[in-house]
């Protein structure tokens, strides 16, 4: 026979203003199995908790019901208090008589009666509660960082400096990400490469970091603390241990006219190539799609010139399997594809380029050595138009969000242009200038005031060519929506930042959720910004939403701390709200029939098959078994199981049944 204690909280006047708490306490005292009941002004306060603890001892309570606020608010508080009094914490339940009662109903008999009903219901539930033990799971103290951009680099270094092993997986032949493509960075105008490349080298040389470039995540199994990850190391057609990175092969390769991805098509590369001079690792890969040998079967020039015979034409992709306790996803973003802007002529006119291409033009190591020259004829543009929000904040284009970084980099572009072309005129068409950030607004002001950038508030409807000029037609909404036409020599689109084309596939591989734009979703937009809804997988950088460098780095360090905190223990404890398949004595073993209809229902692939064997090793029966590490306790399998062989701890069939019965029968 259970001994239940009921504790009714006044919550100051929040509850007692409309509910007669004394009456509720008194009447609960008459309920079957309730041996003690009382009310108190603030149950969650220190004296309130002491009251509960003392009552547990004094009245030998083995179940506690606290009638107060929402369990989402104080369930952990009261469970902890009960635990401190020597009770199993999972034998404490809360009746929500504040949010679901006193606050939503007027002062009346009826409201007090409802509070009583809710208490009675929870009393009946708690009588069926079973003592539960927190689940302990061991942790593999290795983190996998997916993506080697600035966020990935920061995260990897932070984790590695805490003394934990890190495996970095980068898709491209070099780490560095989009940041390595940038010329200067706002709002300080310091050179991007100068601040990034030392960090890239640090990653490569760190004793705790293993770097896999030209590699992708093949599959992820397991759960927090215990992931099993398969990594595909794409063939570089190269023995990396032999290669000295001398670069002779890249100078001799006969295929020289391949558009260079790093230069955003503004420069060329060879088929065996290093993406950029400061690449890490600074060793080439063969792009098989464009290699004469792989396409036509003859050439092998690189093999002939290599002084150390490091070229391996027969090298195959390699799949390696690693174990990890946590993953940090830092896969970054992409820029909207040109076919989005038929009206802006991107792709049709050579001198309409996007922001990243402008970065390459402005970069001292770029295709023009840092001179702003237009792609069509190499002339220096005298009038240049920047179009902000090219795709962003435009429901008609399917992108309703603000890409966030464009206002700032457009101001930076205008500045860089003016610094290099003194007699040139930069124009910026914008919707709003969003310059929230340290020194950001001041930076934009400088572009307007000191560098004389002409900001025009309005949208551009179309860009077309006439008399060798690009005519940018828009409206100036600060001049009464007057139509304006600017004859420009070059147009730069601040194209929207979008998710990577393969982000959906990766999200499904990782079992993390993503938003309508295919950006990865954080577990909570405010309070869990670097966690995902899959425990043990964290996010950082622009794979969540467009972010600038300081934000990406901050998030990366945040994610690193989460990983380090997880790795600070050798075991982790989890709420025991998990499902379980019953087990019985032979010959039944379990009421589970082994139909496995529940298998596909589980969102976490937590349902496994267990074979019951006789002494000779013959399988007698195959049963479902829940992996406690994977199960998150949703109970979808429980409601599906016909035989009721699965039950959910904390929300068991008996508990829920008792609740319904108690709520309606009195």
């Amino acid at each position: 026979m259970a001994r239940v204690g009921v504790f009714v909280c006044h919550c100051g006047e929040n509850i007692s203003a409309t509910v007669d708490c004394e009456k509720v306490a008194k009447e609960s005292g008459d309920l079957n199995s309730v041996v003690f009941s009382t009310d108190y002004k603030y149950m969650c306060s220190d004296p309130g908790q002491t009251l509960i603890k003392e009552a547990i001892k004094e009245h030998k309570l083995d179940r506690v019901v606290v009638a107060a606020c929402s369990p989402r608010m104080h369930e952990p508080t009261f469970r902890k208090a009960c635990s401190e009094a020597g009770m199993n914490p999972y034998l404490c339940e809360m009746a929500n008589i504040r949010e679901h009662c006193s606050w939503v109903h007027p002062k009346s008999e009826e409201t007090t009666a409802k509070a009583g009903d809710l208490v009675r219901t929870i009393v009946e539930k708690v009588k069926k509660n079973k003592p539960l033990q927190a689940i302990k799971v061991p942790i593999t103290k290795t983190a996998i960082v997916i993506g080697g951009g600035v966020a990935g680099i920061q995260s990897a270094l932070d984790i590695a400096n805490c003394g934990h092993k890190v495996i970095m997986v980068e898709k491209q032949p070099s780490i560095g990400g989009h940041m390595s493509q940038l010329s200067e960075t706002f709002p300080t105008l310091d050179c991007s490469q100068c601040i990034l490349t030392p960090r890239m080298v640090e990653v490569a040389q760190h004793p705790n970091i293993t770097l896999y470039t030209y590699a992708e995540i093949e599959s992820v199994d397991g759960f927090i603390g215990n992931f099993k990850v398969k990594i595909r190391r794409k063939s570089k057609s190269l023995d990396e241990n032999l290669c000295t990175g001398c670069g002779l092969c890249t100078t001799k390769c006969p295929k020289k006219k391949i558009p260079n991805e790093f230069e955003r098509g503004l420069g060329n590369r060879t088929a065996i190539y290093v993406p950029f001079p400061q690449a890490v690792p600074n060793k080439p890969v063969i792009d098989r799609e464009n290699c004469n040998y792989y396409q036509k079967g003859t050439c092998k020039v690189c093999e002939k010139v290599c002084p150390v015979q490091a070229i391996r034409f027969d090298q195959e992709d390699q799949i390696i399997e690693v174990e990890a306790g946590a993953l940090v996803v830092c896969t970054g973003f992409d820029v909207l594809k040109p076919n989005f802007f038929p009206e802006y002529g991107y792709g049709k006119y050579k001198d309409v380029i996007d922001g990243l291409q402008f970065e390459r033009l402005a970069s001292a190591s770029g295709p023009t050595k840092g001179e702003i020259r237009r792609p069509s004829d190499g002339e220096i543009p005298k009038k240049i138009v920047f179009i902000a929000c090219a795709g962003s904040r435009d429901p008609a284009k399917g992108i309703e969000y603000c890409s966030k970084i464009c206002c700032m980099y457009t101001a930076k572009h205008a500045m860089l242009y003016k610094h290099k072309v003194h007699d040139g005129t930069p124009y910026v068409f914008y919707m709003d200038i969003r310059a929230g950030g340290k020194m950001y607004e001041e930076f934009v002001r400088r572009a307007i005031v000191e560098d004389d950038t002409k900001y025009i508030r309005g949208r551009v409807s179309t860009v077309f060519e006439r008399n060798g000029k690009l005519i940018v037609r828009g409206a100036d909404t600060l001049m009464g929506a007057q139509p304006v036409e600017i004859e420009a020599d070059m147009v730069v689109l601040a194209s929207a930042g979008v998710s990577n084309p393969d982000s959906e596939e990766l999200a499904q591989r990782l079992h993390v959720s993503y938003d309508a734009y295919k950006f990865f979703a954080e577990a909570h937009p405010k309070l869990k910004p670097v966690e995902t809804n899959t425990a043990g997988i964290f996010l950082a950088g622009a794979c969540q939403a467009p972010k600038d460098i300081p934000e990406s780095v901050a998030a990366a360090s945040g994610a690193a701390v989460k990983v380090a905190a997880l790795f600070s223990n050798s075991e982790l404890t989890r709420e025991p709200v998990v499902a379980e398949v019953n087990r019985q004595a032979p010959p039944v073993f379990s009421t589970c029939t082994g139909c496995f209809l529940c298998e596909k229902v589980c969102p976490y692939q937590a349902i496994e098959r267990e074979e019951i064997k006789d002494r000779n090793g013959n399988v007698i029966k195959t049963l479902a078994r829940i992996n406690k590490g994977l199960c998150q306790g949703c109970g979808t399998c429980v409601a599906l199981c016909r035989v009721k062989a699965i039950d959910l701890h904390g929300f068991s069939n008996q508990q829920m049944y008792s609740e319904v019965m108690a709520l309606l029968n009195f």
Partner: protein
Amino acid sequence: MSDILINKVKQLLSDKAIDIFIGHGEGTGGRIRPIFVRTPEDAEQLIFNENCKQSWANYLLKPEVKAAGKIGMMATKHALRAMMQLASEFQIKDNEVLALYWDNNELKSSADFKEIEAYLASQNHDILPHEQEMIDKLNAMTTQERWDFWQKEYEKCIKCYACRSACPMCYCHHCAAEGNQPQWIPVASHQLGNMDWHLMRAMHLSGRCINCGACAKVCPMHIPLNLLTYNLITPIQQEFGAIAGMKHDATYALSTFKTEDKENFIL
């Protein structure tokens, strides 16, 4: 037809291709009953005629039958569908049960799921016209009329669970109706408890019912309880594109979902 069948089963048993054969035999009062043949001599008792429409698939998982060894079965169309459904629920394996079935007056035998699926695909599986008529008639009634109709039927139920025994899909060792922690279904046979039982049964068979009609045929009180599950077959097929017992590797309609599933009833 019986002769062909008897010879075939004799052959199979004497070749040790099977150890036990479940077939149709003569019962009392001209009725058909299942017989379990273990020796070539016993095969003489087998019959097959136009009255042999019963499916014996519900015997396939009985421990006594399984203990006998390799099973052969005279299979109607419904028995074959039951086999496919049981296979999709991992209850029987490929090449485990040898099914004998008539295809255009030719006696075929197969234990191969692919072959059986191909045969099933060539057959018509619609609900019988008079049954469909009854479903349509009920659907045309008002809610209150339907309530009254079923209450009258539930009142008759004596909770003998013959429906459960006859159903090839009711193979749980420990039926939820027997569970008493909590007592989902009242033990006593009163209207309310009877309704509980029949609704639970229908829900458990939704997306799994292969419309063999065994449940209604065996009901001693003649409750048309097959209509409860039949009525769900069409909506499940239309809404989710799922039909039970046609493929050995089909996905159960309620084990999966589409994000665009209809939800016009949800606020």
